[in-house]
């Protein structure tokens, strides 16, 4: 009798530690993609900073943060449809369109600027919502639907900005492309940025703060909702998700709308960064293609179901950091694309390493 009581109590702590250990292993495996990308990014970026004559200074960080922001947002936008095993070819076009809208509206009095920003964000989300409607109600494959809508959005952008130009408010443009201290100084906040409590953070670039806010306030809450979980479920198995009674259509609409919102935020920043709008077709295409690369580097499976916008953000940073190094080291100009390609291929191949661990080779074809 006493034996039977003793055995489970003695076994329990052991069992618990094993479960805990397993949980950690599982978590590690679930986030292996992101962690791999993060390690690659840190390696490349530290290498760059260590070799930069002005390495580890505020300016370098600001300059790099500015360069990465729009691509990071467009890559986060791309992530959401990819989680559902679809591709959104319109993210670059939405970014461009919203940038052109911003070059018309984000100027004038503070109220006008605020309204302009709201209109920009809303138009990005609206573009995404239209994509979602075409996919859900038109029952067209995302890749084709967004190919078509991207042409429409580029057309609208060209109507808004037949030639590059426009203007955004200068102070705002300067403030969001600098560090927190400059930001505060520009708008006369916190004793012009000299407040003592601000000093430990004053060097942080505004774009990085914005990225963190977007992730904390939009992405993380989204993944915790039923709609957000459904997006993942659709990517794993749409029929299973349907049979489980999950709101498939709502999730698809929400996913594309969120993608449009992210891409629009990227476009808004690009307009602020360049204080102008430019309906540049090759540039929009380059952003769309790079966003897919960033998504894959960030550990999101193109088959859907696993991954995260945070990973894609890191993937975008990896993409950018590769070319940062060309500015420091004497790499022959015509060989640079080759090197970039090799590093990219290596980065993407990291994701393929998990195939080596599969017990059943048939799972490759899942």
């Amino acid at each position: 009798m006493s034996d039977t009581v003793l055995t489970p109590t003695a076994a329990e702590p052991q069992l618990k530690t094993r479960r805990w250990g397993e949980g950690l292993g599982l978590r590690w495996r679930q986030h292996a993609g992101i962690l791999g990308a993060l390690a690659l990014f840190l390696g490349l970026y530290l290498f760059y900073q260590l070799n930069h004559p002005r390495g580890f200074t505020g300016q370098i960080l600001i300059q790099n943060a500015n360069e990465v922001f729009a691509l990071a947002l467009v890559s986060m936008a791309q992530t959401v449809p990819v989680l559902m095993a679809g591709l959104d070819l319109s993210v670059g076009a939405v970014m461009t369109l919203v940038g052109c809208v911003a070059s018309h509206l984000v100027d004038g009095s503070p109220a006008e600027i605020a309204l302009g920003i709201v209109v920009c964000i809303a138009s990005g989300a609206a573009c995404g919502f239209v994509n979602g409607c075409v996919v859900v109600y038109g029952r067209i494959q995302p890749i084709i639907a967004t190919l078509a809508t991207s042409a429409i959005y580029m057309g609208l952008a060209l109507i808004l900005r037949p030639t590059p130009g426009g203007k955004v408010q200068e102070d705002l443009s300067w403030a969001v492309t600098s560090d927190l201290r400059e930001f505060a100084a520009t708008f006369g906040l916190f004793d012009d940025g000299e407040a003592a409590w601000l000093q430990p953070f004053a060097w942080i670039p505004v774009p990085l703060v914005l990225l963190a806010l977007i992730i904390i306030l939009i992405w993380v809450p989204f993944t915790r909702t039923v709609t957000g979980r459904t997006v993942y479920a659709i990517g794993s198995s749409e029929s299973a998700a349907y049979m489980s009674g999950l709101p498939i259509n709502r999730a698809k609409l929400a996913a594309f709308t969120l993608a449009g919102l992210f891409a629009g935020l990227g476009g808004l920043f690009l307009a602020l960064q360049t204080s102008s709008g430019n309906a540049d077709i090759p540039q929009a295409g380059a952003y769309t293609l790079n966003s897919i690369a960033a998504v894959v580097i960030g550990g999101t499976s193109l088959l859907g179901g696993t991954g995260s916008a945070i990973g894609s953000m890191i993937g975008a940073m990896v993409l950018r950091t590769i070319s940062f190094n060309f500015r420091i080291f004497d790499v022959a100009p015509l060989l640079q694309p080759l090197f970039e390609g090799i590093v990219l291929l290596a980065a993407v191949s990291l994701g393929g390493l998990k195939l080596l661990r599969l017990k059943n080779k048939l799972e490759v074809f899942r």
Partner: protein
Amino acid sequence: MARAARLSALAFSGLLLSSVASLAAPKSVSGPGPDPSCFKPWSAQTKYMQWDKKPGPYRIAVVNGFVGNTWRIQMIQTAKAYAEQPGMKDKIKELKVVSTGTDVAAQLGAIEDFINQGYDAIITIAVAPEGFDRVIRLADRNNVVIVPFDNVLDTDKVMQVNEDQLEIGRLSARHLLKELGQKRDGKILEVRGLPGNSVDRDRHLGFREVMEKEGKFQIVEVVGNWDDGTAQKATADALAVHGKFEAVFTQGGSTGSVRAMMDAKHPFVPMAGEGENGYRKLIAQHAGEGLKGFSYSQSPGLVAISMKAAISALEGNPMPQLISVPIPAVDYTTLKDNVNYWSNLSDNFFAANEFPACGVNVTAPEIMAKDAKNTQ
């Protein structure tokens, strides 16, 4: 935590130090500057700029955008070859070339990086004519000379280098009129460039301005995208529809235009076109049969003029804000093998690299020497 605070304090003090650095900006001065035949001001209204004199040798960066056509590749090789020429070699400590693709954020980032690395001058072909305010501000703070060329910026705050595209159109028209003699009517073929581009627009306007004043020509327009294949097809179509032209003006893809005429057994007529080696080879071969050609060029060698201008500015000379580089042009009477065209080299490069007014001549063999081992 304490370590993080210390690190951030370190980064912050670094920031403070760097922002204290001189807030110099180029002074607005009155001309003339040195070498006025090469650094020719765009117009009488062009203002002059002067930077603080810096001791050489200098570190120069070339920030290219799109890479992947002959022109851009030749431009990069010209920059490298020019930096090796005697007279330049001892003025340039380091030349770095990067291509950022058609992405304005990447180009701005690269320019800002080179400013932060302490480069003295940055030569660039702008991806967009707008959006460089921030880097211009930073360059002025750090006393760095930024020189956009070819695709220039819509600003008068930096020194820029280009050829006058309106004048290219006018020169082409004048050549055709001269070769047509007394004839002032008939059909003229105009093969245009990339639609929507300002270069295409300006060359077209300059050409029309002269042609329409002089005679009653019927000018037929087709779009050739500055590309041999497209221009050849567009010319062939125009020949099929219109039969005969008295003269041809092609903005680019000139070799293709001539080949289309030869394929259609169209008689050779006076022609004006770009500076491709293939086009110049054809002119040299067929001038006697009537291909009285004129060949101007928006030369990849502009990068060399831009480097020369940047160094002149760093040496403290007053420089025109917008420099109109003399247009390198030849016609069928002045073509010379191994001088301004190369009959033994491929069709696919731009032969005009000679700027006598600037003392700049980066010849094809020099560029080709860079080509084989490209890139070291």
